[in-house]
Every structure is written in structure tokens, then in C-alpha cells.
């Protein structure tokens, strides 16, 4: 299956450009999180199966006891994956700016060529993990001023999305539904309006659905709307068979993107026959 998908992607008829975001060129339109896997080995297998070339990571205090333990960087091939640090767990703009700067320093220390980008999250509360729009706007403004390429997690509110772009966000990343909820795309119409606003006169501006994916059809549905990519984590990591789900996500992303580029037929209320009406057996003419 995977091999067949690769062959299809190689054919000129279905050629697609890279996802350009924050000064980085990504061959895959899936960005995959590295959290919640049973083991680092399983994480590495799933990332490989997903076809992604960009993975998110969180910034946390180093353990001061048993520091000889494994580090995630020992299991991420830096030549294969571009690391995108997040500010997950931050509830104020101050915290998020601080964590973003630490993430940038970690990337610089690794010699990354994309050290100045960040997946910004400023959360409203622990129950919903919905973004705090006021804090998100404030942090975006500060990080852009500090030279960051800001990929910003936000709700599917088109007005907030537009404000974030106006502040200089490198990518606006509306949630399909709450983080880790697996509810998929709850308000496709809001995403359509986000796309219309964000891509008006700027068709290549990257819009990425971040969060809420439960299964492969959610990825396909998002891509069919015309978003440029999908960021997901839990749907793979917590699936009963994570590696197989990673393969499904890869195929769904490809399918949804190709369907969007191909241009779907309009929905109609009534049927239109696919077989010719003429020459039916037993017809009078």
C-alpha cells in the first residue's frame, strides 16, 4: 500500500509542491506530534510510517535525577525531521514567550537551520485546552517582534484567524476540535471562512489544521477543504495499532490533498445517471 502511494505521488499527473511554512519547505503535509507513545522506538516507527518530515516537540525541565536516561533527541533523526518546538502547557503570553525562547535556544544549540520557528499555544483552561485568544494575539505580536516564525494554534474563529495573520503569524493553525478529543472537524464552514480570509490575495499562505483529528477521514476531510496541512498526535499515538494508523494518516493526507487539487463535483439534491440513457434494452426508440 505504502509503496503504491509513493508511486502515485511520483507520477507527474498528481504532482504537488512542498508545504512552505515559516521559511521551511516540507515534502509531507502532515506534521506529527511526538507525545503519548508507549516507547520512543514506537514513536520512531510511527513517524517513519506517517511520511512526515516535521515533528513537534515540547520544552520541559530536564530531570535532575537519573539524567542518564534517554532523551527524545536520541530517537529523532535530525537529518530527516525538522523539529518544531511548541509552547504547550502555557496559559499566559509571558509563559509562552519564555518557552519559545528556550525552544529556540535548544534548536540553535543543535545547529538547526530552522531555529526561529515555534508552534505557539496559549491555552485558556485545562479542561478544554482551547486557545486563549487574547493571550495568543499578545504572544504572537511579541514573538514576531522577536524574530520568530510563529505557527499559531487558534480556534476556528475566522476573525481571530485574520487578526493573527495581520500580526505576522507565519501560519494560522485552527483547531478542528479540542486537542486530543478525536472529534474531527466540527465546523467545516468556519474553516472555509478562515481559508477565504487568510488566502484572499495570498493563495499560498499556509493554513494548517491543528488538533482534533480522530481518524484518517478527518485528515482527508480537512485537506479536501483546501487547508495546506494537518498537525496531529493523539490519533496516531493512542490508536490500538499506532503504526498502521500512521500509514492511514499518510494515505488520507495524500487522498484529501489530491481531491482538493482535482476539484470535487458540486453536491446536487437529485441523481444524475452515470450510464447512458440511450440504447437501454427493451426501450422503444
Amino acid at each position: 500500500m505504502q509503496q503504491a502511494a509513493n508511486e502515485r505521488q511520483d507520477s507527474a499527473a498528481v504532482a504537488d509542491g512542498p508545504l512552505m511554512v515559516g521559511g521551511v519547505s516540507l515534502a509531507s503535509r502532515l506534521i506529527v506530534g511526538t507525545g503519548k507513545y508507549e516507547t520512543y522506538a514506537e514513536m520512531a516507527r510511527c513517524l517513519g510510517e506517517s511520511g512526515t518530515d516535521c515533528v513537534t516537540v515540547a520544552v520541559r525541565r530536564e530531570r535532575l535525577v537519573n539524567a542518564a536516561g534517554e532523551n527524545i533527541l536520541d530517537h529523532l533523526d535530525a537529518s530527516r525531521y525538522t523539529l518544531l518546538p511548541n509552547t504547550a502547557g502555557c496559559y499566559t503570553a509571558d509563559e509562552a514567550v519564555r518557552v519559545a525562547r528556550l525552544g529556540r535556544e535548544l534548536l540553535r544549540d543543535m545547529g538547526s537551520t530552522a531555529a526561529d520557528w515555534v508552534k505557539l499555544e496559549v491555552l485558556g483552561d485545562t479542561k478544554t485546552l482551547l486557545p486563549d485568544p487574547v493571550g495568543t494575539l499578545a504572544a504572537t505580536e511579541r514573538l514576531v517582534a522577536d524574530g520568530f516564525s510563529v505557527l499559531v494554534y487558534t480556534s476556528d474563529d475566522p476573525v481571530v484567524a485574520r487578526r493573527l495573520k495581520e500580526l505576522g503569524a507565519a501560519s494560522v493553525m485552527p483547531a478542528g476540535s479540542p486537542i486530543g478529543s478525536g472529534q474531527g472537524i466540527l465546523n467545516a464552514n468556519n474553516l472555509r471562512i478562515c481559508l477565504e480570509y487568510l488566502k484572499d490575495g495570498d493563495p499560498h499562505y499556509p493554513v494548517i489544521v491543528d488538533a482534533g483529528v480522530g481518524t484518517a477521514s478527518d485528515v482527508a476531510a480537512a485537506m479536501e477543504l483546501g487547508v495546506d496541512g494537518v498537525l496531529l498526535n493523539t490519533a496516531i499515538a493512542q490508536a490500538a495499532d499506532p503504526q498502521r494508523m500512521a500509514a492511514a494518516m499518510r494515505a488520507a493526507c495524500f487522498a484529501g490533498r489530491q481531491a482538493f487539487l482535482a476539484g470535487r463535483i458540486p453536491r446536487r439534491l437529485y441523481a444524475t445517471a452515470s450510464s447512458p440513457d440511450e440504447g437501454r434494452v427493451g426501450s422503444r426508440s
Partner: protein
Amino acid sequence: MSGLPGDQRATQTILVNGRARPVPPDGTLAAVLVEAGLDGRPVAIEVDGRVVPRSRFAESSLTGGERIEIVTFVGGG
């Protein structure tokens, strides 16, 4: 940066990831990392809210009372 001689530093403490620790004798972040077993590991350090690049870890800047955060990457979405 530091006006304190080394023997006075020993009586001073710093907060490293929320835990009190003595100021290392040479007052450097490099020594803090060695004591924590994190020498050579992929970490970033913040002192009193400001990021300190690795190139300055060997500077003798700690005098006591500093709040130090040592962070790394972990799995996340």
C-alpha cells in the same frame, strides 16, 4: 559579574528547576550542569528569566539567589 570570593559562594544557594542547590565553587553554569549530570546533554538554560547561550556557560556569573531553569525537548504535540 561576581563580587563574591569563592568561599562565600558556598554559603549561597541557587534554585535549579525549583530545587535549592549550593552555588558551585567557580560560579559557572557549566559546573551546575556537571553537578546535575547534564554535561554535554542537549539542554537550554534560563537564568532569572533570560536565556543564556551555551557559549557563556563557562562564565563565572552565579552569586547566589538566581533562579535557573534547565530544559530539554520531550515528546509533545
